[in-house]
């Protein structure tokens, strides 16, 4: 019981640490929040004019279609932030200090999770408000909309564990660039901006099976926004897969991360 209480207290202390980071670097936080908004404006107004989406009409239809994808993409890109935070602590020796202290060993990941999920909630809110401002709406009721936000956060939670694992494992200076190079194709090889059916055969299949595509598809369905549809089994079961994929990823990367944290070799 006492142990559990300290685990909460230590997790809270490390969450607080991240909030202190935000307070000390407000400009970075704002830039981080505005980046997805910029993507929406860029695709919505610069590129969106020439796009047509089934079930949507013209540029306004494309923007309706764009928001769920960008929301999910933002969750995936959150992986970079998690990775960077964990890796910085490891390379500076801060993680070693934590590990040599009599604190709860769960605190590092609890603090990271809470702080990153808070950041994700703020991020989703800013982007959703921007979406509302340019004409995006949800059409299937508040409960369905909240379920969509829940699935988006679930995806972020899965990315969090991948980020923690990579942050503990990957060494060297160019690591962030390497992770970015990995994350971008994961983000774009999906149904976020284009229909997988228009991609060359095997690429289209990968895009359909991309976990991001499932969350995007599920969010479009729950918000009642236009989407690509698709005849494949994954496309037909987007909501189910938007739960299964993150849970699977967590089931893999959570134990890997815990084992790695316990046996961290410099």
């Amino acid at each position, binding site marked *: 019981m006492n142990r559990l209480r300290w685990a909460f207290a230590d997790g809270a202390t490390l969450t607080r*640490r991240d909030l202190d980071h935000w307070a000390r670097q407000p400009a970075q936080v704002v830039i981080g929040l505005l980046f997805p908004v910029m993507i929406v404006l860029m695709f919505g107004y610069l590129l969106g004019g020439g796009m047509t989406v089934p079930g949507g009409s013209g540029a306004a239809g494309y923007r309706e279609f764009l928001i769920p994808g960008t929301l999910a993409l933002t969750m995936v890109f959150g992986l970079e932030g998690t990775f960077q935070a964990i890796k910085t602590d490891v390379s500076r020796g801060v993680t070693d200090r934590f590990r040599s202290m009599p604190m709860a060993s769960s605190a590092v990941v609890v603090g990271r999770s809470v702080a990153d999920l808070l950041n994700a909630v703020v991020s989703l809110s800013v982007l959703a408000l921007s979406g509302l401002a340019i004409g995006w709406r949800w059409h299937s009721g508040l409960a369905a909309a909240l379920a969509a936000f829940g699935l988006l956060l679930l995806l972020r939670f899965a990315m969090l564990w991948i980020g923690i694992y990579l942050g503990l494992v990957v060494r060297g200076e160019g690591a962030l660039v390497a992770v970015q190079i990995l994350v971008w194709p994961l983000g774009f090889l999906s149904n976020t901006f284009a229909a997988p059916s228009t991609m060359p055969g095997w690429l289209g299949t990968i895009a359909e099976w991309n976990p991001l595509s499932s969350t995007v598809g599920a969010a479009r369905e729950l918000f009642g926004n236009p989407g690509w549809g698709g005849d494949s089994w994954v496309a037909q079961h987007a909501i189910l897969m938007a739960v299964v994929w993150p849970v699977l990823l967590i089931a893999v990367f959570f134990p890997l991360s815990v084992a790695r944290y316990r046996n961290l070799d410099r």
Partner: protein
Amino acid sequence: MEAVTAHALRRRFGSVEALAGVDLAIPAGSVHGLLGPNGAGKTTLVRILTTLLRATDGTATVAGFDVRREPDRVRAHIGLVGQHAAVDEILSGRQNLEMFGRLYHLGRVAARARADALLAEFGLADTGTRAVSTYSGGMRRRLDLAASLITAPPVLFLDEPTTGLDPRSRGEVWDAVRALVAGGTTVLLTTQYLEEVDRLADQVTVIDHGRVIATGTPSALKGQLGGDRIDVVVADLVDLPATAALLARITGDTPDTDEDHRRVGVAVTDRMAALTATVRALADSGIAVDDVTLRRPTLDEVFLHLTATDSNSDAEKVTA
């Protein structure tokens, strides 16, 4: 009572044997210097003793607790200053100390009070609210040291605490360590600098290639080169071999010659007799000398001597 013990400690990384059976016994309240060149295994030993890394074989205790079986209790009794200043760069010095204080389970008020006291003690009171990223190397090190002293742990590990510091910051760290020891803390200090153990340590263990090659007090280690040394500097380089032969005859030992400085040196046992014999023999032979000195060897010489013998014969182990 022993604050730190290690028995036949081994650690392998793939094919590298970072520790090849290390024994250690550090009495409570003393400063123990762990001296060795880069890659000797110092950090590996510290990481095992601070529960960060598991030994492949062997046992170790810290503050009476087994590092493997009771890591939580070990952690409650140690402070660690690693090779890099392990502090949060974005936060201020005070925020760092408060955060670590909270993680040591001090209350909010107590953590703040402790942070303020430590900032003052380590000369950081004025800069306590600035981001650590603006600190100098010496300031970071002091903050790092302060962070590991929040609960005044009985055993403190310092892994190369002054590497990369300018002489002034180095002196500040030394002063801080001395103050701690006066308060009864046991310190294990690793270093590549002989001067550092000479100034701070009660006992020294020299390691190289994961093995203990010597252990003793700094002055006993100096005594290992055969006690005192006689150095003769000749006026003319051509006299160097003759002088070396002469010293060899008197001491029965092979002298080291240094052509750049026109110097011959050798270890002596009976210092005054050897000095008298040398001066007389030099006068008889008519060799012109610039200087004859009788002196204690430096730790650098001991160290070079020990590590050289170590690479010649791995099995050799000297104990003073």
